[in-house]
């Protein structure tokens, strides 16, 4: 395993640490604080899922990490520490443009959202893979057909496809070509933004299996962005849940699905249709997601939270971590609020996990 290279073999050793990252956009006389104090830590060779509803800042956070934010956007604060396999950690946000360019693809690879539709329609797959490699400094004589072929093989595609054009491939196959492309230079981290969205279930399953295989064969860590919790359950080791530009909960995937802590996560899980057990009515999270131009004061989830109390309306909760490393940012988990926490748990048990209520019943 790679951990042995510099003698450090702690399994929890981070490869990427995001601390208090903010990404703001300016326009129409307003500042949109799309990502606003988000933190997470990606461990070497782990698959970390980033979940949350659309508009919560998942994609923007990824762009911030990769320094892809362009005007009128800016990164006013935060740190993104990358730990190479050897040598000291670097803060990506403090690097010069050329240094960032050199890190991309070799250390941090990116599969953007919807990119399976961005392959060049008039170039063969082999040429497109070659282009990306030469652009990142691989000498042409080092790019052999057998190297490209084994790259495709590592994502479960036949090397015969090297001579194919994108239109000859299905959506799932194109997505796997892009994953192969991102793995070409053996990056420490792959960031994939909604790679299965818009795919049919079979193709989606194939892409998820490809990502697992990529981790196994290339030893890359993966930051996997998806709004679909069921997909996280199938793939990731840990999940980070984002709400209103912040990470509100982070924990082992089994723990998130068995004992989610944050009321928002509980609500998300309660609104998933399940195909096992008795069919029961689901209850969504009441209200609408807030706007990044005007986040609610205090806890940003409080206007939609059925368990909110006075403190939530004025004071933002700080993220706290329990012994097993499960993080949550919610006032209910502060020692002084244990009675309220018990009350919430009792209410959830009473309702059989039913969360919230419909604000209005509408008999027809």
């Amino acid at each position: 395993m790679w951990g042995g290279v510099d003698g450090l073999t702690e399994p929890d050793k981070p490869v990427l640490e995001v601390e208090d990252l903010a990404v703001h956009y300016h326009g129409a006389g307003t500042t949109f604080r799309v990502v606003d104090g988000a933190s997470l830590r990606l461990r070497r060779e782990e698959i970390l899922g980033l979940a949350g509803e659309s508009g919560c800042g998942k994609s923007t956070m990824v762009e911030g990490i990769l320094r892809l934010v362009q005007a009128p956007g800016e990164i006013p604060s935060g740190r993104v520490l990358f730990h190479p396999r050897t040598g000291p950690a670097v803060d990506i946000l403090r690097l010069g443009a050329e240094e960032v360019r050199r890190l991309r693809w070799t250390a941090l690879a990116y599969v953007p959202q919807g990119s399976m539709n961005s392959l060049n329609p008039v170039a063969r797959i082999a040429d497109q893979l070659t282009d990306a490699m030469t652009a990142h400094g691989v000498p042409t004589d080092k790019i052999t057909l057998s190297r490209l072929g084994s790259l495709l093989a590592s994502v479960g595609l036949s090397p015969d496809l090297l001579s194919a054009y994108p239109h000859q491939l299905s959506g799932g196959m194109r997505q796997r070509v892009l994953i192969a492309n991102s793995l070409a230079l053996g990056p420490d981290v792959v960031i994939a933004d909604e790679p299965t969205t818009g795919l049919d279930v079979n193709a989606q399953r194939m892409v998820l299996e490809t990502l697992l295989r990529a981790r196994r064969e290339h030893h890359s860590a993966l930051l996997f962005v998806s709004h679909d919790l069921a997909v996280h359950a199938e793939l990731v080791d840990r999940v980070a849940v984002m709400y209103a530009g912040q990470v509100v909960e982070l924990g082992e995937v089994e723990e998130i699905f068995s004992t989610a802590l944050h009321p928002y996560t509980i609500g998300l899980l309660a609104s998933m249709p399940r195909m096992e057990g008795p069919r029961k009515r689901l209850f969504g999270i009441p209200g609408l997601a807030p706007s990044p131009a005007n986040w609610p004061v205090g806890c940003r989830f409080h206007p939609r939270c059925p368990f909110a109390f006075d403190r939530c309306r004025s004071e933002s909760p700080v993220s706290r971590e329990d012994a097993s490393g499960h993080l949550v940012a919610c006032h209910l988990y502060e020692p002084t609020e244990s009675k309220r926490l018990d009350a919430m748990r009792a209410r959830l048990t009473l309702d059989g996990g039913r969360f919230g209520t419909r604000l209005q019943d509408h008999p027809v």
Partner: protein
Amino acid sequence: MSGALLETRSLSRVFWQRRLGRPVQVRAVSDVNLTLGSSGGEVLSVVGESGSGKSTLARLILGLDRPSAGNVFYRGEDVARFVGAKRRQFRREVQAVFQDPYAIFNPFYTVDRVLAQPLRRFHLASSLHEAQQRMEDSLRAVDLRPRDVLGRYPHQLSGGERQRVMLARLHLLRPQLVIADEPVSMIDAALRTMFLNILLDFRDAGMSCLFITHNLETSYYLGGNALVLYQGRVVERAPIDRILHAPKHPYTQMLVSSIPVPDPKKRWKTSLPESAIESGETVGSAGCPFLVRCPYAMEVCRRQDPPMMSVGDGQEAACFLLADRGGVRGSMAPMCKAEESG
């Protein structure tokens, strides 16, 4: 004439494409028969992957496209022949909900228009005051505050709010039948739940729904019957519970086994064979459409189109494996989740 609310008979739609300079026939919808009963409150899901002909089927039923063969009957009358008042009544009673919450608004008008226009057109309110009242009631029913929405332009609303306005429109019109084409695939979990609950409420009040989706979890939630479409053909039909828990057609089995289950303790233990997604060339006029991807293809599947075969409990599938009973169920085991975990 039967008493069905909606019925299609041998409905087909053929498109002509030019491939390598030669015209090629593409059967988007092929010989589809479906029925929604006249008693109301029925849900029928049409399930299939992209390219299976789901959306073409929706367009044919809505009268937005003409069938190449076969007919669509609404309350026993051919939809293609509707004109004038009949057509207007059909437009009022049968409402469509589409996937994209962004494309349905005209950016030049305030969102009031999508609510006010049907009220005016179908004479649903006797006064301006009543119209306003009904619009506000419907907005509140979908968790929107009328003052946040009325008088605004589409770009001033978030995606979630826009989709809710479309739901409010449904609430306002209370149609007899909703044709929902992938209505929840672009919205978030919380709103999706609300949307499905509204459909359930309307169903309980007698509205029927043709629910077109690639997402089997949501059709399970709605209940009712389902039919599985593959390359424009119905390959299996059954109550949705049977489709999910005892699928008979190899294609349905493959679909069901690939649904991600929201439980990290029940992950896939085997990988999907590559042939499962290889989109093979369409088979000629004879033969099973699933032939290329089917792990059990037999000689007879090449020669003959499998007919629908009943397996009891209101379930039928078009597969020769069912002709001699058995066979399919046990041998598909490695791909089926339920059997893995056991």
